[in-house]
């Protein structure tokens, strides 16, 4: 149906932790400016998969990967691709907020830019990203305060703003709301809905309702394998594979 080239193309991706294989021959495509939800029971390789996409997986001692990942046709694992520069194009938000404790809110947002010596209109960037994450009104009068003074939900939105300030093309989110209360979760989901107009988003979630709410496409992982991939509607209403059906109907996981 779509003739446009997928933003991310994954082909036969395998990953190991030492001798334990965590991912087996994963192949899928992520459409530009869409939201892909990765679902599956604990330990199925969802986080590992996403961490391969920004080459964070290989930073774990003993971890390695094989396979191809193309970003706009460019091979992420080729010798010419600098993982550090890659991570500015593919950003990541983690499960628990990891605000830099010794930096103020403003410094946190600008951390990715300042540390890389990127110049720009810092004040505008701070305002823009904090507005994008619906945090601006809450913190605009205390940008110089420590980021640790914010609530959990606010800290996570600060982390998202920090990731956005670097202007990535793809945003990876590893269970971004799992440490948050329901109200904060709703805000983050609202945010994702707005962000997908500009960014390509891959979100790992163990909450199927969340996947249904925010994503257009869903991939179901089980025991390191991609069991099924399709539109969210299809996966959750008439999945093709038996395992998928068992999972989404709550029979296990």
């Amino acid at each position, binding site marked *: 149906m779509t003739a446009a080239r997928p933003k991310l193309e994954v082909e*036969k991706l*395998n990953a190991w932790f030492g001798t334990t294989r965590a991912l087996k021959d994963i192949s899928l495509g992520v459409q530009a400016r869409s939201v892909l939800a990765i679902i599956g029971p604990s330990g199925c390789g969802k986080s590992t998969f996403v961490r391969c996409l920004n*080459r964070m997986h*290989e*930073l774990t001692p003993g971890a*390695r*990967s*094989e*396979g*191809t990942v193309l970003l706009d046709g460019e091979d992420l*694992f*080729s*010798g*010419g*691709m*600098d*993982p*550090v*520069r890659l991570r500015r194009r593919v950003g990541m938000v983690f499960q628990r907020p990891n605000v830099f404790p010794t930096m103020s809110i403003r410094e946190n947002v600008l951390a990715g830019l300042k540390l890389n010596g990127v110049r720009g209109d810092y004040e505008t960037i701070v305002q823009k990203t904090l507005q994008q994450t619906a945090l601006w009104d809450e913190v605009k009068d205390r940008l110089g305060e420590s980021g640790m003074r914010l609530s959990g939900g606010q800290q996570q939105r600060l982390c998202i703003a920090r990731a956005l300030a670097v202007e990535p093309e793809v945003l990876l989110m590893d269970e971004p709301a799992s440490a948050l209360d329901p109200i904060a979760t709703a805000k983050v989901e609202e945010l994702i809905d707005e962000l997908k107009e500009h960014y390509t988003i891959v979100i790992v979630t163990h909450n199927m309702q969340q996947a249904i709410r925010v994503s257009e496409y869903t991939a179901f992982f089980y025991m390191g394998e991609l069991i099924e991939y399709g539109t969210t509607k299809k996966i959750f209403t008439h999945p093709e594979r038996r395992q998928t059906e068992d999972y989404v109907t709550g029979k296990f996981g």
Partner: protein
Amino acid sequence: MRRRNDPSAGGHAGDQVFAGSLTLFGGGVLVVFGLIVLVCVQLSRPAFAKIGFFHFLAGSDWNPVEDSFGALPFIYGTLVTAAIAIVVAVPVSIGLALFLTEMAPARVRRVVGFFVELLAGIPSVVYGLWGLMVLVPLLRSSVQPALGKAFGFVPLFSGPPLGLGYLAAGLILAIMILPTIASVSVEVLRTMPSSLREGALALGATRWEAIRMAVLPYARRGMLGAVMLGLGRALGETMAVTMLIGNQPEIHASLFAPGYSLASVIANEYAEATGAIHPGALTGLALVLFGVTLLLSASARLLVRLSTGQLRSAA
């Protein structure tokens, strides 16, 4: 087509430089150790060449004027003062550690812990000053005469009560190594899983019995390590000992007699030692001291690590 993804592709020059600098700093520590060994061996060579290693160790005459150098008086003095220090400090430190971890309410624990930290921070020369002005007169006027009267028939307590001597130095050392033994023992006791103690208490043991049955057997190895660390400190402590030991390079049986320790003679004589033999002999003493404290330190830390590691795995 399987392709192995190389994680180092596109590494940064900055990373290499940073890693290299860090390795330099780390390696520098090893270099320092090597330097200590090298310098000491080099400087002591002329003395050993002239006197011979075993003659040096076993000789009991120290006379720089006549080029006669024997290490025995200093080895003896170091050992005797350290022994006194251990005999006095160990029961006090262990009692202190037990009190802090097992018996004291939280507020008392904090206050006493603070005092112990203070003790640890007082410079050696201040201990020496207090020892000279307070401890020595006390020994001379009250303690030594009393001990002499009661136990004078024992060679240990014979002789005139001078004040300065092995006993004074040993006692000040005891005070100085107290915080070391106590704080390491506290650490060992604290990493003990409370289930062991609670098991004993649940059987109806009194607090002391619980300590004796459950706590001490497990903490024994770590506490031994703590004592060894304290012993290491006692062997190498310089200033306070120099000020209280009397500085006589002789061997006497009585604790009241003046003596000399390895560290003290090095500190006292090095500045004015001329030629190559005198400094060489002093450096030889330094080598002896280095070797002993090295051995002690290594085994002590091994013991402490074994004990706290073992206790954690028993949890």
